[in-house]
């Protein structure tokens, strides 16, 4: 039996062929090493993300998350829900909080859920993957599996917004959370210090307000380079995509020469645990992480 078991909420972007599919590949491999069993919530749906607020309104958004809660409760009772995506985690936790604080909202939610043949009684705990790593396993346990430390690598931990605010990771500050730096150090790399660790990448508005969002991204990448970082590491699929895929556009607009690989924390862990480039999903990088590819091949 696995050491830890959870109800897994992978989220839309992590599915095969989607924008964060390499995240899922590395999480699966990481969980195997750490003996964590993640069972997908059957027929889970989209959380609505933050950006749906205008079209969705209040109740429909909470109902979407409530459907996942009810499916988890029904099929995987007494397990915490674990999301890998920052937006899924935030959306679900926000709905949990609202539903637990309003009987009116909960009653309306159950009326709507009935149409899908579901009913919600107890809302499971909703946690992010990094919470499981830090709180249920701990840094020492994470470090104990390292076979190949990422020695000498300089990495900027880009925490961004939604794993940090408004809920955040217990015991961390909003202004300078240290958990990602500690994760980087637990696999033997060096976490560089820079002042854009919790700056917003523009989020979904990278689509609707590209110039403003790309200016945000430019500030982040620039500061990471200035700190001597060779790559950026993040816990959020949207942070990852935004800071990686727009570097070319930013270079055209600003005359910069950005080419900074952007990884997930889970990819670093897989490599340090002795996994291959494929296990770590390195073939999913738009900006190739050549230094890590070489490292994996050694």
């Amino acid at each position: 039996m696995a050491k830890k078991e959870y109800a897994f909420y992978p989220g839309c972007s992590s599915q095969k062929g989607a924008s964060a599919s390499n995240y899922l590949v590395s999480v699966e491999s990481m969980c195997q090493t750490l003996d964590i069993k993640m069972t997908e919530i059957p027929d889970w749906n989209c959380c609505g993300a933050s950006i749906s607020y205008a079209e969705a309104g209040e109740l429909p958004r909470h109902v979407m998350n409530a459907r996942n809660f009810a499916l988890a409760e029904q099929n995987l009772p007494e397990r915490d829900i674990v999301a890998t995506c920052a937006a899924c985690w935030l959306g679900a936790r926000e709905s949990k909080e609202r539903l637990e604080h309003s009987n009116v909202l909960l009653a309306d939610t159950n009326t709507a859920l009935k149409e899908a043949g579901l009913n919600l009684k107890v809302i499971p705990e909703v946690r992010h993957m990094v919470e499981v790593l830090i709180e249920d396993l701990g840094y020492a346990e994470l470090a104990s599996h390292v076979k190949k430390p990422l020695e000498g690598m300089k990495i900027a931990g880009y925490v961004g917004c939604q794993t940090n605010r408004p809920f955040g990771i217990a015991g961390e500050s909003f202004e300078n959370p240290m958990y990602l730096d500690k994760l980087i150090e637990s696999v033997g790399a060096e976490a560089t210090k820079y002042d854009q660790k919790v700056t917003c990448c523009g989020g979904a508005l990278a689509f609707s307000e590209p110039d403003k969002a790309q200016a945000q991204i430019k500030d982040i990448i620039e500061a990471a380079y200035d700190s001597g970082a060779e790559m950026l590491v993040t816990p959020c699929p949207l942070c990852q995509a935004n800071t990686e895929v727009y570097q070319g556009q930013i270079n055209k607009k600003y005359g910069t020469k950005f080419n900074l690989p952007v990884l997930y924390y889970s990819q670093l862990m897989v490599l340090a645990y002795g996994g291959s480039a494929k296990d770590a999903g390195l073939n999913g990088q738009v900006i190739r992480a050549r230094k890590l590819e070489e490292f994996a091949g050694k």
Partner: protein
Amino acid sequence: MSDMNQQMAAKYQGNFLKEIEEQAETGEWVKMCMQCGVCSGSCPTNFHPGWEHPPQEIFMMIRAGKREEVLSSQSMWMCVSCYNCYVRCPRKVPITHIMHGIAEYAYRIGRAPKNQPTLHLSQTFWNNATKTGRVNEVQLTQTLYFKDGIASGIKKAMAMQDVALGLVKAGRLNLMEAIGGGHKCKDIKGIHAMLAKAKELEAQRKGRAA
């Protein structure tokens, strides 16, 4: 839609604060603002040029009854949901949610700015996600690029082709989604029925039923 606007204006008879408290999600917090401006200083710098009014000014305008100016403002639509204002507010005002709430209400009664790109994104995202229960990223992108017609869409797609090609090569853009392939929920029918009911209940609760 403008009927809904008139109906609401008549219902609240110039008491715009009460209107926002009852109609905008978490709007009951507006009166807690003490005008310190920490929210404005916390908002992502590069989005400031899009403001007509910083957040604390929006709150004061609500109390001053400036209904038209607030509802038609671009300001709320600049919110990137970074929650920096939210965690820093000394009065614990849930500013991010209020911004979303005012924007949603303005849209619902037909007073949101015309051709607001983030409103269009919100509509597109929600309709895309709820069609099959999960986001179809390819169709989402297509709808966003081609919102102003074919010529403009092709131009945007061309400008973005390096980004798209990079993602395809990395296995992170599934072109089968363009023709309806990819991932979806099994109980799409149940999801649609559930959402229709939720929408109906919300309209009833807020007195916005057609």
